[in-house]
């Protein structure tokens, strides 16, 4: 089971949108995952508990020096685009295995 955290600035709006879109995409791709959402500060300090972080492209810098090894960081341009999320999830998660 994949552990995924969706993150945004305040952990209120955007991260929840990402989470809902991820749930849909994962279901389509038959990936089993538990998905949470929070703010980037939180996500950074808890990164070692997760396999994947998904956030806006503008925030991926936060995770660059993360101590969590093997953490997959996915940056999104359009948080609402299932197409973009599907492409990136396929590339970074499915093809990486």
């Amino acid at each position, binding site marked *: 089971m994949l552990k995924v955290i969706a993150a945004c600035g305040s952990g209120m709006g955007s991260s929840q949108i990402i989470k809902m879109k991820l749930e849909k995409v994962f279901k389509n791709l038959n990936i089993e995952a538990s998905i949470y959402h929070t703010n980037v*500060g939180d996500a950074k300090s808890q990164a070692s508990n997760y396999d994947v972080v998904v956030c806006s492209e503008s925030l991926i*810098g936060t995770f660059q020096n993360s101590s969590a090894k093997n953490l997959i960081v996915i940056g*999104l341009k359009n948080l609402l685009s299932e197409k973009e999320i599907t492409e990136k999830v396929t590339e970074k998660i499915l093809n990486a295995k």
Partner: protein
Amino acid sequence: MEFLMPIWAFFQENILTKPQFFIGFIVFIGYLLLQRPIYEAVAGFIKAVVGYMILNVASGGLVGNFRPVLAGLKDRFDLSAAVIDPYFGQAAAQASIEHVGRSFSMMMVVLLIAFTINIVLVLFRRYTKIRTLFITGHVMVQQSSTALWLVIFCFPQLQDIGVVCMLGVLLGTYWSVASNLTVEPCQKLTEGGGFATGHQQMFGIWIVSKIAGKIGNKEKSLETLKLPGFLAIFNENVVATGILMFIFFGIIITILGPDLMHTIDKSFGAKQSFLFYIIEKSFNFAVYLTILQLGVRMFVAELTESFQGISNKILPGSMPAVDCAATYGFGHPNAVTFGFLFGALGQFLAIIGLIVFQSPILIISGFVPLFFDNATFAVFANRLGGIRAAAIIPFFSGMIQVLGGGFAAYFFTTGNFGGWHGNFDWDTIWPAIGVIMNYGQYVGVAAVILALLAIPQLLYRSNKDTYFLIAEDYDKYLEVVESKAAAQKN
């Protein structure tokens, strides 16, 4: 019918006037209506109730932490003060509402009525010209809270049922009309990203989209700029709030002096260092804000999910209006930081202005309007007017936030509880609506609703053939625009 009275009294005493249980039951019933299993409904009920109770602890904490400082300012300078931030605003609105003996449960009813109004306006979009459904749950909670206090302030005699119905229609109209205004700017920025903004600065975004191209040159954008790396720490909410509050409360409490603080604040230990007292006091705000957000996240998550479901299911061809941060991926990261910096500059200058001109209220910058409004404006401004527009617009927006917020916190008396909503629309259009309601009463409310409803009609008239197309099929929209331009050339 006699036997019903005790049941009603029980219901009123234990549920209707207790917001936590009221919200819990709404979530519970919502789950059942969505035909989810009963155990999920129970889980939703618990999360909603606990989430609300967490929020309550934090709201009380925020207002309580502020109280000695407010008392000190009143005592020494006859000043009141407000942090302009939606969370402080929500806490101050709740305190104001409960202070006059009304129930805060109405907030949730207002939210549901307003959301329903938005759905109805979208369903009849052939006539109303509304293309967007507002689904940003936490913002809806904040706005319902502040707007509820505005109505209770302007109509103190109005019964609960009248308050929620009138405000539900007003707020629902605002959500529909304002988010509908952001369709063109958002679709152009995201090149057909398929969403509009449903947040706190929608009129602001529309204004920016109109003026940014005139202020600057989009060829000179800020992508080439190198910003200092330390600014990245402001990406973290707790850090940013801690720093902001330390600066502001550090200055205020230092001016009030240790002697006065000792007499009005019991939590200031006799042997405690003044510096560490200030640090503790300032960081307390970060503590309560974090708790508040945890509570809101908990009960709003349930709400947003069902709103999103509704938006997908019954409204094909309409656009969801979501959090403003969804646009950040389409702007350079520099734009976000730039907006924050110039917004801060504008706010600080305006605050100095308030002090110099001896305003009866002092404004303290809150993180959410400072960052999220101005960063959003900078993203749009940079795309349309380059670096010049991305600096000038957030700068003036910052000044407007302080001056408008100061007026609102003073006029609507939430300064007594230390907060005002503070986001751009709530420093401009909403104080105006409040003043119109206050002096125009029911006629004023009706006039505001009609004026709001006229906006999409005017928008539609200016470009009839592409008005719905830009929301439904962006590629086709571009084709039509291009063929039109070509036809004009010939």
